[in-house]
Every structure is written in structure tokens, then in C-alpha cells.
């Protein structure tokens, strides 16, 4: 019996599972497909007209795409907060959640890559970046580091769950000696992807708003808050709509991770604000622009003043055990924390880096409808991929999907 045969059967069974489901499931997938198609249409306009259809300009040359990319790297890295306790510390409470977390990481990474490609001026010459065929400016360019770590992390997060599910699919236990080394590697790798992505910005002496030693650590803290917050929400939905059992204890433990990370994130935020506003220098202008506006230009004020109160409120609520252990409050907190960090680390981080420009020029940035369409399309694609992965994984874990070829062979 060859491995390929089992794998073929797995793909066939998985296809059968993901194409069948309740009406609600079909509506969900249909809606995602529609949004993806709209996104593809918007992208086709961008391809034929050029990036001029976006709100970006020579003054603000990165926008919504790179903002979402940065945020999603954090979501992907957050899977480590489940991987480490399960595979390395052998905490059984996380075992149910870890496959979902890894599925989320895969979806987030694919979205990251899609956002980077969407942001490229010449997607047709992207092969210039492939090591060996093109010219890979390693190790000088942090972007090449990012290409390596993101793809490596994607590989790890596909292979480990695939191996485990593949064994379970055949009704066997997964051998820990096979996947634990990979899991340990992925723990370091997760920290790596986020630190490297932070270094992408942190290493630019031209942009004082980013050129700040706290950027990397703060990326990690906010990632370990926003990512597990999303995982909690996803687990809550899954246990509501499927037979997959997720214990309360698991959610509580993940909530603890979110809480600690959110607290650290808040401390770092205070430290940053103190540095920018206690003794403001020429380099604090971007922060001034972000929080108070400069010379009457204040496009980011509504965003950041939504994010900060949500962030503080969520962190405070989560800090009290009683409130955190109430699931209604927990889900609410996770939701607002996710939104807050999406704003803060997306828009609130990328756009002010360019404002004011190198010579003090303030040109604001507003995404266009086409840009928003492409962005929504990519998010829908991420949700679509995650749904497929999760449905297959849950099917196998519940024992609904099993390899049947064996009996025929005997």
C-alpha cells in the first residue's frame, strides 16, 4: 500500500467533505467566493491600469496592502502560542485547538503572500526574486529574509498538521519523534517571522517613526494578543456549529495568553507614547500626525482614537479573572482587541511612517475602492482556505474521514 494511494484517497475524501454541508455552510462559501471574484475583478483593473488605481503615491508609497500584510504576519506567528504548549510542554488542554491554530497560520501566511504580490508593481517579473533563477539580495535586504522565513513557516505549518492528520486518517497515532522536532523549530521560526517583518521597517534610518528598537518586541506582543484572540473566536464558532468538542478549559488557557500579551503590549505602547510626547523632537512628528494631526491634516485620527480605547478597554476587562471567565465578555474582548490591533499595526503603523515625508511634506493617504475590493477579496480567500482546512481536519479528528482502502487490500 503506497503512501500516495492513501494521500489520493485523503484528497478525494476531503473534497467530498468540503463540498457537502448545511445550507448555512453553502451560503458562507458562496458569499466568500463572490467576494473573491469581486476582488479578482478589482485586481484585474489594477493589473491593466497600474497601481495608480490605488490611493498610494510617491509620498505615501505603501498603504492598505502592506498594512494588512504586517498584521497578518502577526496572526500567523500566533499559532506558536498553541504549538508550544501542546507539542513541547505536553499540555493536553491545547491539543484540540492546535490543529485549528495551525490551519489559521496557513491561511494567514497565504494571505500575507497574496498581499505582497498585490502590492508589487511588476508581478510578471516576480521570478527575479526566486533564488537561483533570479538574483536574491541575501543577506543585505530584509525583504529576502522575509521571503525565506515566511515560506519556511508556511512549509512547517503545512507539513506538521498534514503528517498528524494523515496518520489519524489511517487510524494510527502520529509518532511524536517525527513531528516534535518540526514543532520545536516552528516555535523559534514563529518568533523569527515576526521579528524579521519588524526589522523590515525598523532598519530604515529614513523613517524615524519605524526606526525604533521597540518595534520588534511590540510586534511580538501585539501578535500574541491579536492572533490567539482570533483563535478563540474561531474556536467559539467551530464548537457552536460543529460536533468538534473544544473544552472551556482550552479557551480559558488561550484567554490567559491573550491577556498577558495584551498587557505587555499596553506597557510598550505607554513607553512609546512617553518617548514621543514627553520630549518631542523633529522625529516625533509622525506620532503627532497619527494621534493629533499636523497642520490640519488629520485623516488617521478617527482610526487611532478608535483603536486606543478599544485596546485599553479590552486589556482592562481581560485582566479581571471574573470578567475573563465569562465567555460573553471574553468573546467581546477578543473581538475588540482584534480590531484595535488591526488598526494599530496596519494603518496606524505603516501610513504615519511616510507622513511627514523626508522634507516635511504632508500628503495624506486614503485607500480607493479598488484597493479595498482587492483587500476584501484576499481576506475572503483566507477565510475560504481556512474553512476548507478546518473542515477536513475536524472530519478526520472526529473520525468521520477514515481510510477505507485497507480492507479491500486484505
Amino acid at each position, binding site marked *: 500500500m503506497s503512501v500516495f494511494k492513501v494521500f489520493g484517497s485523503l484528497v478525494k475524501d476531503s473534497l467530498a467533505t468540503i463540498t457537502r454541508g448545511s445550507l448555512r455552510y453553502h451560503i458562507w462559501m458562496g458569499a466568500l467566493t463572490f467576494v473573491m471574484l469581486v476582488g479578482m475583478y478589482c485586481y484585474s483593473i489594477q493589473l491593466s*491600469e*497600474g*497601481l*495608480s488605481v490605488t490611493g*498610494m*503615491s*510617491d509620498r505615501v*508609497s*505603501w498603504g492598505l496592502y502592506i498594512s494588512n500584510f504586517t498584521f497578518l504576519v502577526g496572526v500567523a506567528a500566533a499559532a506558536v502560542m498553541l504549538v508550544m504548549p501542546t507539542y513541547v510542554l505536553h499540555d493536553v488542554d491545547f491539543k484540540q485547538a492546535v490543529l485549528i491554530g495551525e490551519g489559521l497560520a496557513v491561511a494567514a501566511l497565504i494571505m500575507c503572500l497574496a498581499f*505582497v504580490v498585490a*502590492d*508589487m*508593481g*511588476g508581478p*510578471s*517579473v*516576480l521570478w*527575479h*526574486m526566486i533564488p*537561483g*533563477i*533570479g*538574483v*536574491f*539580495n*541575501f*543577506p*543585505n*535586504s*530584509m*525583504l*529576502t529574509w522575509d*521571503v525565506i522565513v515566511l515560506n519556511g513557516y508556511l512549509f512547517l505549518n503545512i507539513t506538521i498538521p498534514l503528517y498528524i492528520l494523515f496518520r489519524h486518517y489511517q487510524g494510527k497515532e502520529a509518532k511524536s519523534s517525527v513531528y516534535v522536532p518540526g514543532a520545536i523549530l516552528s516555535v523559534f521560526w514563529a518568533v523569527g517571522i515576526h521579528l524579521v517583518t519588524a526589522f*523590515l*521597517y525598523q*532598519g*530604515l*534610518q*529614513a*523613517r524615524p517613526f519605524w526606526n525604533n528598537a521597540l518595534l520588534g518586541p511590540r510586534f511580538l506582543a501585539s501578535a500574541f494578543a491579536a492572533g490567539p484572540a482570533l483563535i478563540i473566536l474561531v474556536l467559539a464558532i467551530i464548537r457552536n456549529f460543529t460536533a468538534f468538542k473544544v473544552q472551556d478549559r482550552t479557551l480559558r488557557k488561550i484567554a490567559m495568553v491573550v491577556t498577558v500579551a495584551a498587557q505587555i503590549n499596553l506597557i510598550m505602547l505607554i513607553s512609546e507614547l512617553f518617548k514621543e510626547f514627553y520630549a518631542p523632537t523633529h522625529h516625533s512628528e509622525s506620532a503627532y500626525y497619527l494621534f493629533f494631526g499636523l497642520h490640519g491634516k488629520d485623516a488617521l485620527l478617527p482610526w487611532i482614537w478608535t483603536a486606543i480605547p478599544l485596546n485599553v478597554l479590552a486589556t482592562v476587562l481581560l485582566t479581571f479573572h471574573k470578567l475573563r471567565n465569562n465567555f460573553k465578555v471574553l468573546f467581546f474582548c477578543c473581538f475588540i482587541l482584534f480590531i484595535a490591533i488591526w488598526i494599530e499595526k496596519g494603518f496606524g503603523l505603516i501610513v504615519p*511612517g*511616510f507622513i*511627514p*515625508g*523626508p*522634507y*516635511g*511634506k504632508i500628503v495624506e493617504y486614503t485607500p480607493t475602492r479598488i484597493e479595498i475590493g482587492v483587500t476584501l477579496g484576499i481576506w475572503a480567500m483566507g477565510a475560504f482556505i481556512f474553512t476548507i482546512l478546518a473542515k477536513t481536519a475536524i472530519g478526520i479528528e472526529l473520525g468521520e474521514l477514515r481510510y477505507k482502502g485497507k480492507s479491500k487490500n486484505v
Partner: protein
Amino acid sequence: MSTNKKWYSLNFGRNNEKPSGACGCGKTSGGCGSHGAKGHQEPDVNQMTDQEFAEAAINASIGEETKKDGFDQVFDVKMDRRTAFKKLTASLLIGAGAVSTSCSVISGDDSKEKAQIDWEEQFKGNYKLMSDDEKSATVDRLMRSYELRTGKNLSMSSKNAEEDVLFGYAFNISKCQGYMDCVNACVEENNQDRNSEMQYIRIHEMKDGQGFNFNEADDNYYHEVPAEGHFYMGTQCFHCDNPPCVEVCPVQATWREADGLVVVDYDWCVGCRYCMAACPYDGRRFNWSKPEVPEEEVNHNQHYLGNRMRKKGVMEKCTFCVQRSRTGKNPACVEACPTGARVFGNLLDPKSTIRWVLENKKVFRLKEDLGTEPKFWYFMD
């Protein structure tokens, strides 16, 4: 890239300056299908009988392996990645050629040649790593392509940096009156996109008595100059000796030439705009749409690294008019300046005007604390 940097940077045994003759794949032997003329021997699809075409196609795709049988032809072949890529390109080309030959009734030889040039241009290597032959091959292709499209000729150079030349620039703040003749000359010389009004040079109008206060300056004025109570200061790419934009480029599409010019290979750029974020001097411009220059305004005296036509989605920047400076002329902005505020020359020539300025004037540079070492100095009378 300068070899004596002030700080340490990881190198992992790689040479920054790869031996010339290598292309993007980093190998010197053979072609990767990207070196046109001498890279590989595609059959000339246009002037062949079907018989010859079939033979040539077999020859190009399997070559000397014709003596082997069956799978051996395909699988039992010593092939490095370079060769594999070359063969893949060759067979794809033949496939594409065959399809277009069989399907098209009206397309003439010209359009086929154009398609072939477009194909080779799409898969050529990085200019930085090309040998001189490869450089002139791509320049020939681009000139021929222009001729096929417009029926006009242009001259494009691939002249390399000369030895003992390091270009530098000085700007006399006392002299500049803000006439912007430099900006106009630059746009005309360098074939910049007219639709988006792209300009490499920005002239900042500053108020007297406030010092060099860029925040209060206006770089987009439309009134009579010189305006009362104001002085003028121009910025453009400073051609740093330690350029941050070069370090960050993921594909080495931008680099510092031996004569100090920081240039871009427009055909190698992937359009990620990381260099733009890394530049502290607002020196880089991006083609957000397809750049357009009316045919009668195109400057036909071009250099591959300079003012040749760009395409949508790539970076470009001031090159100190490489097409002029490497032939001993001043950049267009220097020539156009009616006040003599702009000085350009060879920093290694002790008798040059630029050296005289550096030695006799109190010069300064912008944002020196960033360690970028611009080769653009400001001074006052």
C-alpha cells in the same frame, strides 16, 4: 557598493561584485535563455519550411540526446538548472512560435520579430551582472523594438563607468532663484511621464530668517520668482556613497556604479517600493501608471541605465543624466541653470570645479547623521 564601509555588514562569503559575464543565475557557462543573441540558438521561425522547423525544434529541445531512446532522452540527461531553464525557454519559444505561425494569417515578419524581442526581454538577466556583450545585445534589442514599433531610430548606449571618475554635485544656495529651468530640462532630457508630471528635482522655497526649515518650505509654487523674502534650495537624488536604497532592494535591481551613480535596471525591478521607503531624501519615483511621452518630445539619445523609456510599475530616479555625464557632458539641470547655481564634475580630478568648490567653500550635506554619505553638497557665496 563601496568596499570600505564604516560598519560591518554580513557577507557570508558572497562577493558583492560578481564577476561580469554571469547573469541572473549566477553562472557563467551557457545561457539561461535570457541572453538573446548568443544565449541559445533558436531557429528563425520566420524563414523556414515546415521540415526545417520540425528539425530545428527537435534539435533545440533535445539536442544531442537524439541518439537515445524513449525515456532516456528526457530523463537520462546531464543537465544543470541553467541548461534546464534554457531548454524550457527554447521549447516554450518554439511552441509559442509554432502556435503563432499556424494561427496567424495576417501577422507579418515584423510582428513576429517583435514578439521574439519581447520574449527575450522578458527573460533576460540583471543588467548589473551582464557582460559587455550581453549589455549591448539587450540595448540592440531595445533599439530594434523601438524601430519596429514606431518606425524611428533611437540611439541607446550601454557605456560603462570610466576609470578614475567619481561624480559629485554641488548646489549654490545663494545663486538659485527658483526659476525651475533645471526641472523642465530634466523632464525633457529624461523622458519622464508627462501625465503624472513626474519630476526628479524639487525646488524648495524657504522663508528668509527661518534657516533651512523644510517643514515651512513650499516645493510646489506657481508664482513669479524670486519671491520677496525667500530663498531656494533644490533636492534630488544625492547618489549616496552608502545608499540605503541599494541595500534594501531584494533583487539588486538598483546599485551604485563604479563612477558613483546610483542607477536602476528598470527591467529587473519588481516594483516593491522598498527602496522608496528607505530613501531619506525623497530621491526615488515610481511609475504608478504606464509612463507616456508624446512621440515628438521623446529624447532619442538614451542610455540603458538612464533616460530610456520606462514601463508601468517600476522605480526610476535621477542618474545625473548618465547618458550625458558618461560622454563628458554636464547633466541637463546643470546646463539649463541660468544662474550657475549648479556645479557638477569629477571628484577624483583635482582640477575640476567641483573640487575647487569643496576645497574653498563651506560646504554641507543634508541629514549627514544618517551615515548615507551623499555626493551632493550645498554651499553659499
